[in-house]
């Protein structure tokens, strides 16, 4: 059994009128079957009101299912005696950085979870130190959280969860209220946890750029899981995602548009590097096939790639630090020597 396992999980929000009669029932999560293996990086996507946050709250036993069951680390969350074990093995980071920091000093906040768990004093300090270091906030341990930026606050929140030594950490739109820099730093911290500490990460978001590194992506709509698979599998269905009111990463969208306009690109391109490689393959072939006439069309390609290079700047780790991908493509002498020369100067 995986670390998180849900079977036919459904949850109703019940609205009561003043006398306590049922006025309205909204099904927020509808028959969800989810299985997460330990150590995976999972992303859950969905537009507002798709039920993704409600699902997240089930993993932490903040909500218990109306119907169906969910097991976290083999324990059924709806059983009263399991609640604290579940909350310890599945930590949760929320959207608003201000509303989840309890301590007035960073280190005290990180120590809050272990304190609640009854960890001995000496070990609390060790855990606080190691978790703050893991998210790169150790230098700020004596600071007041009010003076930190949004991204730093979220990293403190992550450290606070990490200090509880969870097996799995649920990040419920942790970047929704942050600026691009803060977003990057939080996602970087989450990925480091997954890579280095082997913590299972469940990232709930509606920023597509954040999920391309996930092992598995689930897309939710109206409480149901409507798509799942690797990022490549999911993002290759651009039209379907659009119908679900979701964006795809900009590079993927660009590749899709190019494909629509007749370029034979494969589906599900996720990073600028991949697009570059594909275009490079393509431009090489076009030059050979089309000869002098086709060279103009091929020459148009670096342009597009350069555009792609500009836009995903808000996304971690894809673009080379100096836009070298565009330069690299333009330098390909076979495609268009003239254009390459002046674009080289530009890059």
């Amino acid at each position, binding site marked *: 059994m995986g670390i998180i396992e849900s079977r036919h999980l459904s949850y109703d929000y019940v609205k009561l009128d003043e006398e306590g009669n049922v006025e309205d029932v909204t099904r927020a999560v509808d028959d969800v079957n989810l299985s997460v293996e330990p150590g995976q990086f999972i992303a859950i996507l969905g537009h507002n009101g798709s039920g993704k946050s409600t699902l997240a709250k089930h993993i932490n036993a903040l909500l218990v299912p109306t119907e169906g069951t969910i097991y976290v680390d083999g324990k059924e969350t709806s059983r009263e005696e399991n609640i604290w074990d579940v*909350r310890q093995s599945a930590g949760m980071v*929320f959207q608003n950085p201000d509303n989840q920091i309890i301590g*007035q000093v960073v280190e*005290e906040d990180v120590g809050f979870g272990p304190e*609640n768990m009854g960890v001995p004093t000496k070990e609390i300090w060790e855990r606080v130190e190691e978790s703050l270091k893991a998210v790169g906030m150790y230098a700020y341990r004596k600071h007041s959280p009010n003076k930190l930026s949004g991204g730093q606050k979220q990293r403190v929140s992550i450290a606070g969860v990490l200090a509880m030594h969870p097996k799995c950490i649920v990040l419920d739109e942790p970047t929704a209220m942050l600026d691009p820099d803060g977003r990057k730093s939080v996602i970087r911290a989450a990925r480091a946890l997954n890579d280095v500490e082997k913590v299972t990460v469940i990232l709930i978001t509606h920023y597509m750029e954040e999920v391309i590194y996930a092992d598995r992506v689930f897309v939710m709509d109206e409480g149901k899981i409507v798509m799942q698979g690797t990022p490549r599998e999911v993002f290759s269905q651009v039209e379907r995602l659009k119908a679900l009111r979701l964006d795809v990463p900009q590079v993927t969208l660009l590749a899709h548009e190019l494909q629509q306009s007749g370029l034979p690109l494969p589906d599900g391109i996720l990073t600028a590097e991949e697009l570059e490689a594909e275009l490079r393959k393509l431009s090489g072939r076009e030059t050979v096939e089309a000869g002098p006439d086709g060279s103009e069309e091929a020459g148009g390609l670096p342009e597009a790639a350069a555009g792609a290079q500009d836009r995903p700047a808000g996304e971690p780790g894809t673009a080379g630090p100096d836009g070298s991908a565009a330069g690299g493509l333009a330098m390909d002498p076979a495609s268009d020597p003239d254009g390459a020369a002046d674009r080289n100067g530009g890059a």
Partner: protein
Amino acid sequence: MLRDITLGQYYQTDSLLHRLDSRVKLTATLLFIISLFLVNNLWGYLMAAVFLAVCIRLSHVPFRYMVRGMRAILFLLLFALVFNLFLTPGTPVLRLWKLTVTKEGIRMAAQIAVRLILLIIGSSLMTLTTTPNHLTDGLESLMKPLKKMRVPVHEVAMMMSIALRFIPILMEETDKIMKAQIARGADFESGNLLQRAKAMVPLLVPLFIAAFRRANDLALAMEARCYRGGEGRTKMKPLIYQRRDYAAYAVLLLYFAAVIVIGRILPI
């Protein structure tokens, strides 16, 4: 203007006062306040003021920082001053229309003003040098005997510390809402008292809603981090008396005894 209130804010620095056990500081604040109300002559107040000044020096908190916080209670101070000045019966000194200033009134007003100022600075010194978590721990430990009387000591202490933590956040929120409402033509400055009070409604309603939403979020976050009340909780920073704490207690008792002897026995 809203951000100027320093009451309840922790000032981050390192000093003897910061390192003292919070129980000592709580007791000290309590004794200091009691001493202010027991003293009734100039020498007593002078001594209290000197004691406070020494503490401020030791705390490394800039004095300006504390005085800025005083502005918030200026109104209260004036209020108490004026009422005592005019409404204390006794030998008249000055007559202004229907109001009489009496000798006793002047004395009373001066006393109240000095008391209030020392009291506010004294207690804000405590919150400036003690993190709310320490404060909570100290309160909890000092009030432990009440637990036997089924007083929810831990819960009360936790609520207090959360309230303190959210003061600056709610201040900021108020500021933001105020600006938003001013941008839409709200007027908080002009009109008589009633009109101004009415103008506060569009400020208070969103503020309350936001506060409730925050409270809800925070409760979820605390539960998610296994918070379940005081039972079985350990402390990251347990309270252990050090040598300096005992020394501080001794100094405190000395001050208290001296101030009472001087403040109540000497004339003037």
